């Protein structure tokens, strides 16, 4: 065994201080992340944060310009077929030929492995037995996602790299897919998933890492990450405020706390606001309620509790990705 191939870490997936440039643009600025067997880690971040690049470096599609990359102890660029057989991939977009059928594709990928899962059983496990002979182009978005997941699972991999595994699924398929991924963790697989769906993270991930502008800005359990956010008063009104109304509200809240600034939370739709600059104290709540009563605007929702993961995410990434998480 060469030094290259000797395992250096118990982690199944490891990025250490990884740097990647595209021309003059730096997309990863020293990213370090580990995923251990029996663990699900979610990599979260706005579009363009470097998530897909990080995953593609682990997949062996791209070469890091600096740092160290290990998949099951090996350099993914040099592991060859033996390493690829142990890694299950789910690419964004799936990489599925629209004229194939699920039965064709799962059988093909099964035949590329020695010791693969039974194609028929696998299609049943992901809920595609009924459309096994339907052309991919006639499948729904969620069915294509499940087929891409089946291709990732066909070789009984030890490591799974899942790029947005529940995107485009209806709630029932989403629930079933989360259960399937949870079972894989119970079976000792190391799973790295990228997602925009914060419910995936809250329900599945043991740890979450938020990537922004090429750096991991926070990493921990979803609960720990959410708890790190500043508590803020958040409220939803029966209708969106006119600019002059927002100005009047700012003046009213300023009486309770000089720094209080109401801002619109576009990601939650019209009528959702947050008060920046001050903790959600009783004076602030009273000032808001008084102003709304005077203006005749109903408060539909009012919250002064600890931030959710979504709020923390938006705080860390500067609200740049509100559309993707809405």
């Amino acid at each position, binding site marked *: 065994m060469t030094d290259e191939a000797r395992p250096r870490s118990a982690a199944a997936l490891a990025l250490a201080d990884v740097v990647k440039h595209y021309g003059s643009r730096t997309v990863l600025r020293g990213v370090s992340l580990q995923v251990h067997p029996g663990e699900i880690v979610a990599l979260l971040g706005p579009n363009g944060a470097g998530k897909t690049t990080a995953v593609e470096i682990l997949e062996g*599609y791209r070469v890091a310009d600096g740092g160290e990359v290990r998949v099951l102890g090996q350099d993914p660029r040099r592991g060859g*077929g033996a390493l690829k057989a142990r890694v299950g991939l789910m690419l964004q977009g799936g*990489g599925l030929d629209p004229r194939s059928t699920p039965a064709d594709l799962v059988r093909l990928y099964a035949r590329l492995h020695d010791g693969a899962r039974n194609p028929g059983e696998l299609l049943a496990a992901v809920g595609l037995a009924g459309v096994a002979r339907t052309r991919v182009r006639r499948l729904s978005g969620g069915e294509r996602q499940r087929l891409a997941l089946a291709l990732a699972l066909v070789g009984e991999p030890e490591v799974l790299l899942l790029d947005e595994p529940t995107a485009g699924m209806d709630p029932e398929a989403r629930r079933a897919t989360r259960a399937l991924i949870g079972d894989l963790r119970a079976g000792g697989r190391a799973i790295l998933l990228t997602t925009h769906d914060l419910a995936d993270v809250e329900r599945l991930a043991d740890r979450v890492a938020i990537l922004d502008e090429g750096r991991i800005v926070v990493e921990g359990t979803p609960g720990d990450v959410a708890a790190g956010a500043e508590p803020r008063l958040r409220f939803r009104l029966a209708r969106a405020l006119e600019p002059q109304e927002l100005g009047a509200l700012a003046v009213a809240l300023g009486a309770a706390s000089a720094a209080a600034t109401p801002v619109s939370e576009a990601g939650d739709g019209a009528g959702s606001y947050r008060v920046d600059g001050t903790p959600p104290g009783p004076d602030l709540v009273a000032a808001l309620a008084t102003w709304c009563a005077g203006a005749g605007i109903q408060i539909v929702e009012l919250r002064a509790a600890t931030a959710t993961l979504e709020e923390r995410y938006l705080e860390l990434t500067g609200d740049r990705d509100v559309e993707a998480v809405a």
Partner: protein
Amino acid sequence: MSRPAAPLRAVAALASHELRLTARRGENVLVTIVIPAGVLVFFATIGTVPGIEGRPVDFLVPGSLALAVIASGLVSLGIITAFERSYGVLKRLGGAPLPGWGLVAAKGAAVLALELVQVAVLLAIAAAVLDWRPAAGTSIPLFAVALVGGTAVFAGLGLLLAGTLRAEATLALANGLFLVCLVVGGIVLPVDRLPAPVEAIARALPASALADLFRAALGNPTEILGPILVLASWGLGAAGLAVRAFRWE
């Protein structure tokens, strides 16, 4: 946990998958089987090919075989691969436990298998409908050289287009080149009947070289060294460029 399948088994699996998909696509069957057969029957039925001695069918059978190879390698393989690239199919296969050469080997094997079907259909039509018989000097080894060499050249060109251009551009260009080969590639019209400057270009193109090799293999007295050199040069050039320039996504 699994291991990679034996390389030849993996290549056979991918080749048979490719072949099944090709057979399912109506436009592939049209361009690889129906058009070469139609060209053969149409021009042989007209009854004359200007500038040749002997029966037109003896000129047209090797020409239609060359056209069939061009249709499989350049048009069908090129267009399928270009769309596979745009759908991310090639990238996904790159993550499967398949040796690096496996994809090209599987595609080459699938094209050769398709060509055997094309040869059988064209020769059967020629014999049954056009009263064609192989000449006394027919050489199966030379026929095999023409088939494999022509496949290497036109599959290499098809992969070069597929790996460097957008899928829609590959579709247009492959069909355009197919038409050029049909008209000036010595398929239905001898290249020496073309205007002198066009003839010089046509002789340097792989289509006429391939058609001439098929003519020699089927017993027509034709010089073969020139066509072999033309085909070998194009084969090395296309393969070399495809290896350097091919982008998987």
